[in-house]
């Protein structure tokens, strides 16, 4: 026998409701019966089905009758749940219910209207604040906090002086939800009332002023944990609101307050483990202000919450090199998000003494962490960092970062870096060393590069060609020219890229065969190179590629033509008709400042993709004349996507100033 509890009858009812066709005759009554079921699962599935029924006004009225069934708590709650899911159709019946003789019903109406959150309920709710029943008034003020709007905010502010503390409390909570703090003196007065204190702190956090910070800091010193946490939460909210330039001011106040508390660090450790994210964020701000290195580990652990990453990085940065050392010593003990944050912070905290610890980290850290560590090594300014960095040139995913780090390191240790790179090239450790050598070594590296350009291995030839171009134009061109005829794809691509960067009168002619290369990656590189080198003589080939079905080639061709200043009307039209949206966007940015571009933008305001519409709006805002204002306004009215709306409304703004 199965020892688990069995309830076949309930299961049958559950399934029956689940499979019920909501459009079938009588479905409504079956579901209403379901709302009265003894099992919450069945009630829930009935409520879910009711939300999806057609003709919802009738449904709403039927559900409201269920709300009136005294003694049927389960059914009433399920009906309320269903009503809240009905949306606009429930609005009228619920507003009517606000006038029901039974206060219980009126309270239900207010609660559900709050959950619906429709602005249209604002005025009826404001009126309902006159209700003789206190519970109803409380429910109404809570609902106003959810529904929002100017009237709600004003009505809630009015309640702050009500004789009933319960109403003052719900009004305060409502204003916190609406993010509409009442005037500061009012909030400060409410902080004196212990019943209102926590909510008052929430609202206080919405005031980005130093006076508010000062009062919050008094809360930090409270012996009561919940008050301290409320204050930290307020701080977390406040810091998100103050302009970055004024953050120092806030921190100075916090620092002064915390320094007066003997156990500040301990309290912050405790707060960093709190459930509430805003409390943790306030604790991070405080830890930054306090600058206490011993907090480094709990601060790093706060990165387990993604949303706190920015604050964690900022705080770790403020804990100084001592904090950095604490992190380094305990990397192995941290959770993986904490480790990633710590590594990032370390990149800024390092000093010459950190090399050994950073290298130890490289031993076992994950790849993306290693990229950060590599960057940090570059910043140690220590010659000891040279050998490990040169070794890392071998790892494909880290070679780029290592090359850059060596470049930074060469600022203080040029000779050491050069010697190590030359040695690496001589023993053929990795071709990435060639690029690094050229970057750091400059002209003296040229003979070695010429030599490598004749190497039997294509990898070395490719590396040499690209590197030579960085050091000396003439040598670079000579090697690139030879590379364009190389038998290896890798070398041809390198030659093409080098030629693109170096340009010159012959570049167009030399790049021509590469535009027809048998290898796709060489062709793509050639298109880009033509644009970069300014080879206008290749324009017609690029024009043909604009219609190429491969989006990558077409995008590259449009961008290249734009760089050459040759993206004329025909090109733009071709590109705008391409099935790949990236090509269309490339056309928009290519035409950005031309009359045709503006025409195109107007036409694309109705494109099915939001990103194309946003790109069109940007062009319109940049280059349209005042006569485009109307079309932009109309598009704005019709725009459903938030980001495209934002761009459009910027465009409208700019056009109306022209």
């Amino acid at each position: 026998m199965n020892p688990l509890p069995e309830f076949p009858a309930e299961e049958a009812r559950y399934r029956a409701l689940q499979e019920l066709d909501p459009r079938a005759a009588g479905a409504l009554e079956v579901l209403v019966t379901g709302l009265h079921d003894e099992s919450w699962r069945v009630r829930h599935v009935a409520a879910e089905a009711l939300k999806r029924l057609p003709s919802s006004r009738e449904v709403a009225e039927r559900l409201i009758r269920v709300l009136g069934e005294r003694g049927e708590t389960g059914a009433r709650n399920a009906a309320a749940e269903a009503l809240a899911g009905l949306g606009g159709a429930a609005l009228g019946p619920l507003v009517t219910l606000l006038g029901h003789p039974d206060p219980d019903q009126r309270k239900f109406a207010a609660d559900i209207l709050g959950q619906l959150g429709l602005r249209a309920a604002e005025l009826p709710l404001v009126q309902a604040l006159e209700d003789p029943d206190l519970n109803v008034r409380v429910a109404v003020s809570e609902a106003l906090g959810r529904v929002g709007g100017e009237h709600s905010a004003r009505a809630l502010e009015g309640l702050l002086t009500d004789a009933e503390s319960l109403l003052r409390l719900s009004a305060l909570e409502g204003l916190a939800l609406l993010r509409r703090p009442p005037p500061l003196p009012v909030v400060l007065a409410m902080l004196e009332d212990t019943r209102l204190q926590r909510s008052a702190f929430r609202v206080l956090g919405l005031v980005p002023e130093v006076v508010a910070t000062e009062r919050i800091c008094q809360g930090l010193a409270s012996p009561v944990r919940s008050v301290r946490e409320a204050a930290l939460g307020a701080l977390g909210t406040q810091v998100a609101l103050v302009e970055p330039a004024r953050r120092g001011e806030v921190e100075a106040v916090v620092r002064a307050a915390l320094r007066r508390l003997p156990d500040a660090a301990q309290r912050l450790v405790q707060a960093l483990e709190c459930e509430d994210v805003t409390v943790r964020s306030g604790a991070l701000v405080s830890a930054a202000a306090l600058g206490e290195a011993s907090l480094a580990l709990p601060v790093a652990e706060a990165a387990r919450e993604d949303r706190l990453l920015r604050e964690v990085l900022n705080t770790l940065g403020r804990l100084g090199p001592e904090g950095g050392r604490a992190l380094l010593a305990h990397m192995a003990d941290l959770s993986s998000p904490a480790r990633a944050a710590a590594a990032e912070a370390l990149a800024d905290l390092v000093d010459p003494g950190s090399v050994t610890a950073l290298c130890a980290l490289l031993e076992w850290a994950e790849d993306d962490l290693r990229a950060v560590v590599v960057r940090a090594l570059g910043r140690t300014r220590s010659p000891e960092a040279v050998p490990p960095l040169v070794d890392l040139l071998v790892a494909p995913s880290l070679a780029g970062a290592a090359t850059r780090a060596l470049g930074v390191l060469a600022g203080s240790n040029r000779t050491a870096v050069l010697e190590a790179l030359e040695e690496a090239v001589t023993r053929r450790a990795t071709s990435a060393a060639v690029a690094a050598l050229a970057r750091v070594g400059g002209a003296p590296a040229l003979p070695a590069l010429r030599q490598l350009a004749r190497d039997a291995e294509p990898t070395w030839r490719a590396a040499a060609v690209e590197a030579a171009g960085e050091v000396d134009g003439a040598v670079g061109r000579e090697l690139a020219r030879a590379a364009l005829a190389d038998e290896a794809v890798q070398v041809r691509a390198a030659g093409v890229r080098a030629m693109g960067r170096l340009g010159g009168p012959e570049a167009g002619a030399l790049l021509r065969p590469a535009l027809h290369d048998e290898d796709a990656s060489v062709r793509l590189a050639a298109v880009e190179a033509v644009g970069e080198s300014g080879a206008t003589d290749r324009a017609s080939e690029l024009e043909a590629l604009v219609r190429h079905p491969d989006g990558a080639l077409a995008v590259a061709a449009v961008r290249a033509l734009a760089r050459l200043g040759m993206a004329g009307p025909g090109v733009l039209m071709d590109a705008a008709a391409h099935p790949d949206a990236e090509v269309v966007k490339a056309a928009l940015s290519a035409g950005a400042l031309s009359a045709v571009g503006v025409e195109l933008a107007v036409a694309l305001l109705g494109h099915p993709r939001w990103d194309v519409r946003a790109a069109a709006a940007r062009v319109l805002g940049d280059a349209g004349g005042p006569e485009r204002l109307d079309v932009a306004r109309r598009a704005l009215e019709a725009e459903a996507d938030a980001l495209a709306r934002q761009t459009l409304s910027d465009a409208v703004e700019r056009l109306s100033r022209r």
Partner: protein
Amino acid sequence: MPRFDDSRPEMSLEEFRLLRDHVYSHCGILVHEDMKFVMERRLWPRLEALGLPDFGAYHRYLRYDAQRHAELEAAVEALTTHETYFFREPSQLKAFCDELLPVLEKRNSRLKRLRLWSAGCSSGEEAYTLAMLLKDSRRFDDWDVEVYGTDISRRVLSMARRAEYGASALRATSADLLERHFQPAGNNRVRVRDEVRSWVSFGHHNLLDETGSQLVPRMDVVFCRNVMIYFDQAARRRVLRIVRDRLVPGGYLLLGHSENLLNLGADFELVHLQGDLVYRRPELPGLTTTGGEGR
């Protein structure tokens, strides 16, 4: 002269959205708008590795480059949160041991075979935890037991195979469990003992990939905890269909503490244990179906 520019490009809101949508369609992970900073930080090392100047170029790379598939994996790798530890959510594990294991022992007693799946296993802590619990129950000593751990991230899988952990992974592990199932590995770290490891194997699998899931054998229990929190409804639905398909009839699905199947659970029945709520794939028609308790 070359510059050694040490600054980082910023990600525009538009670039953020394009990248986010691209990632979403690949693996169901939805990155919220307020996570732009996080995305920027996590993807920046990718730009660095590829030598790309900005996130627009990175988006084009993901769209068009010959290496785009590998790069998309790398991006997802960087964006997923792999936070996990041994013996996470103890009350659920207790319910699993006290109430489900006896059922499973009885059900499978003829075959003496048990298959568990830790779907979205991250660095392996969950899969090893399950194996440890099975060992400690002594119910399956001479059985054919397999715990499969799968994840979309190859990096965490290699950590899982290494089976070496530090303090953070062990923050909920009691001293006696530590003693029994781990051995010192130097550097303040420990390694899972071989007896436990021999019951666990790992593989790469995207939970949204229907075809790939055919490689997963039929399971008695699936743990899919703290994975779908990153998905939206549509992606969750898809995953649940796949998971259901991989369960034996009557097999159990255990979700994370803050997750449930409200509005999604038509294919599963809810089972109230004393200590937890779990989901179960219904038995085949004809066999007894059992449901949850009404409350």
